């Protein structure tokens, strides 16, 4: 599975697709593989503020609950409501099944995130031990 090169990646396994001031957020393919079958997603409402590094929601597989951490800060402008009904879309296409769109507060935050190549290296090490 390839990691899109126009995305930035958090070590907590979320991706961001920047587009001017707007940013789209989801979880990575590595994340969905580690979780297994995803059966529940809890996301914030449009208008909520999320803060980089803080939990903005959760994703649950049959076995486990995992917090979602905001890779960047901003105001939620759109939520992918389809995931409430079909959380398995994340398993099918993690990089297509976006969770939130944000009005990003501080584009500088993107710089602290990993590039596709660095993220791939990072998960290869994490998965290897």
């Amino acid at each position, binding site marked *: 599975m390839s990691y899109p090169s126009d995305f930035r990646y958090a070590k907590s396994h979320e991706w961001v697709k920047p587009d001017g001031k707007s940013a789209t957020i989801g979880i990575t393919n590595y994340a969905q593989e580690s979780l*297994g079958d995803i059966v529940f997603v809890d996301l914030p409402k449009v208008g909520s503020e999320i803060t980089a590094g803080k939990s903005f929601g959760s994703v*649950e597989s*049959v076995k486990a609950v995992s917090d979602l951490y905001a890779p960047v800060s901003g105001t939620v402008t759109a939520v992918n409501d389809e995931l409430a009904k079909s959380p398995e879309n994340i398993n099918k296409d993690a990089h297509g099944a976006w969770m939130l769109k944000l009005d990003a507060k501080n584009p500088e935050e993107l710089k602290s995130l990993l590039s596709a190549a660095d993220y791939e290296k990072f998960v290869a090490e994490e998965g290897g031990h």
Partner: protein
Amino acid sequence: MSAVETTSPTLRKTALNAVHRQMGAKMVDFNGWEMPVEYPSAGGILAEHNAVRTGVGIFDVSHMGDIRLQGPQALNAVQHISMNDAARLAIGQAQYSALLYPQGTFVDDVIVHRLGDDEYLLVINAGTREKDFSWVRDNTREFDCKVENLSDDFTQIAIQGPRAVDLLQRLTNANLAAIKFYWVTSGTVCGLKEILIARTGYTAEDGFEIYIPADEQTSAMVWNKILEAGKEFGALPCGLGARNTLRLEGKLPLYGHEISDTINVWEAGLDRFCKMEKSEFIGCEALEKAKAAGLKRTLVGLEMVERGIARDGYKVLDDGGREIGYVTSGSYAPFLKKNIALAYVRPEFSNIGSTVKVEIRGQGVKAQVVPTPFYKRPKK
């Protein structure tokens, strides 16, 4: 997303460990055992669960333990240490039962198989193997019977689901149609003679558990032959993840969750497996008193009404937000496609239809008390 669990090298392994790894199973620590939780390449938990409900699934359950009691007073010994009435067992019959502490709480739940005139086999849980064996040995000293820990002698494979009988029949000369649920026989399986075949399981489905020699080569041979023969029935290898959701849908208790050393038989709702009228057994006096005193909490089934999954340990609240109990097991139910849970609540909240709340990440999420088991297999 937060980190994923990994396993430590000190864990115990079953004889099929290498086979699971070869199949790409995700391995986890289960009560000190490194066990497959799911086989992502074969389908994952949801597919595994539904294979057992609609077809057949294969589980390595060799982490379960086995204790044999044999001798002129084996029955007296079994009667003394377990709550069900083993005197009712014909040779070749099995029963669900439990070992109790003098307080009427659980040492473990067990399946008691009567293998011969004076021979009984107790199948016990992985996490309680050593504790159970010591308990049985220490509490049967006054009886003329030999107590042996056979836990390491067997690889135990469970073949579960409506097609389990068709699959296993391909590999054995035993007439499986003649074995009723909770009966046991022995026969040739995959060319191995005198293999114990029990029509038992932990999935709320029809199925079998077979006990084969624990060496790696034999274990792998049998496992692979079962999977090979299972292809035409859509058999999947299944891990502990599916085992847990299957048993939850069927309201089968799990030690450390619905039953434990602080929960008694009445609270757990296992009355029908506890025969107070039989001869004395450890725990019966305390249970008499507990019955007279009345229940302080009782096990109920919950179905989430609002969005959310109740998980083990979450608080159960009343409408006013007061704590009235806790969740013992909770999950998305893959076959029923609902979010369900088992919980201990105060008896006044246990009526079917009662509305309660489960505290999920600080929020009270509405749930309803529903009839259990959540899933009952269709009668043939």
